[in-house]
């Protein structure tokens, strides 16, 4: 299954998804596509007009530019997602969205898709193991459903 991770640039979550036998949908991949696309002039330091236009399916024109850009960049991941894992309260080292409003709005868009979603809080320390177990159990469950 294609599993969207949140924070969308979390290497740790992406790795867990891959280990769980699924395809992770992460921001790095989307940016990678921008980098490899010969028609885009100066990636990845600039989103494109197409990204901004894509964002307009989800946000209004009057939203701040950075919010539109972030949602525009993340929209393809959202549209491809068959399941998702949302990790909240993660430290910056886990990856971050950057903008709190874009952050909340993207989580809202994930929930609105009504795909199987695991919401888990990062608590750190000894609880990290429990968190990883929870993620792996969710991924195993997805595999079972996929086989059905």
């Amino acid at each position, binding site marked *: 299954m294609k599993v969207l991770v949140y924070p969308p640039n979390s290497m740790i979550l992406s790795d867990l998804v891959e280990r769980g036998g699924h395809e992770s949908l992460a921001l790095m991949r989307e940016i990678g596509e921008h980098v490899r696309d010969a028609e885009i002039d100066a990636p990845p*330091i600039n*989103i494109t007009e197409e990204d901004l236009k894509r964002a307009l399916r989800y946000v209004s024109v009057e939203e701040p530019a950075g919010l539109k*850009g972030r949602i525009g960049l993340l929209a393809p991941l959202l549209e491809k997602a068959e399941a998702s894992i949302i990790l909240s309260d993660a430290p910056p080292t886990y990856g971050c969205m950057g903008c709190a409003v874009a952050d909340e709005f993207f989580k809202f868009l994930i929930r609105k898709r009504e795909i199987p979603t695991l919401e888990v809080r990062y608590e750190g320390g000894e609880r990290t193991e429990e968190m990883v177990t929870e993620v792996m159990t969710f991924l195993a469950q997805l595999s079972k459903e996929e086989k059905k």
Partner: protein
Amino acid sequence: MTKVAQISCGTEYSGIQWMLNDIAERVGIELVYPEMELSKIGEACREIGFEAESPSLNIMMARAVSMLDDPAIKGALLLTCFKCSEGTIVKDMIRRFLHERTDMPVILYSNVEKPKEIELYSRLDALKTLITRKTLLMREKQEGVTMGVDSGSSTTKVVVMRDNEIIGKGWLPTTDPVKSADDAIEAALKEAGIERVDAVGVTGHGRELVGEHLRADLNLEEVSVVSKGAALLSKRHKGDATVIDMGGMNNKLILMRDGIANTFNLGGICAGSSGRFLEIAARRVDADITELGQLAMESKERYELQSYCMVFGIQALVVALASGVKREDVAAAACRSVATQVYDNQIHEMEMRPPIIFVGGVSLIEGVKREFENMLGVEIIVPPYSQYAGAVGMATLVSGV
């Protein structure tokens, strides 16, 4: 290349980084991004005294703290998205923090996804001047016989100065910038009773064209020059001050320290906050622009225009007159509309550091001065020759070249 720190929360997501890089290169600025360890973010937030919800804004604060360790950085450009309230708060906090710790110039900009190139260019150009011409900008007195030409978008102003005194003036509407400058110079020299000067300096929108025509000894952008002129005219060379400069088509809000700008905010988005709006309003109330301010001072009843817009605001003004509102009340409403828009779009992004010095052509309209005083609760200084601030600043600066 002059090193300037770009402190932002992700301009790459707004799609404008390429434009920033391009303009910076053209004006001779190297944009650098101060780095820091992730573990230092919390520490930096505590140092500034604020923790934002957005991780990137916290990183922005950490970059601001980190840039203080790099002596090669000579200025800062603070950017967040237009309409982001949290970004606006953080941007202002960082500006205050940097002004407490350094004397480097800092500029703020709220970006949209397609900013006008001229807006960014004029800001970076001014920042470059403030960094590279600092010694010249420290000048507090004009010496010898010099001439300052301010080729503005609406009017061309010229002053001839001798030993810190204005001895000749010229003020004409700008049509062909070169011809307008020549005519205003002729008037200024005639009044001064001289035929030539030691040096000529040029500023304003038409400075490139006019500067080349006059073979000017100095050609500088308006922010640094107008603030210098305001400091000289009001004799405020030491300490903090705020300059409001309103011309025919655009306006500037400049925070100064010791007579040198260290932060500024440029208008120019909407004609409703310009002198042009007042010109049209004056025509509608059947008054000359020079009489509008005095007419507004006679207002007894408060009337509000329902729009700042050059079209709909003027339409509201016409409707008010047709419905029997007195022309003096309408004149006051027009002055209030312009002052309120400057307040909403520019002043609210920065603190006001008294004294507040009001210059530019609009400063001669008493009604606008009164509205600013009512809004800000402080007395506004309109120095003599306030409309010549740019030209006076230029005449003074060129005497030091």
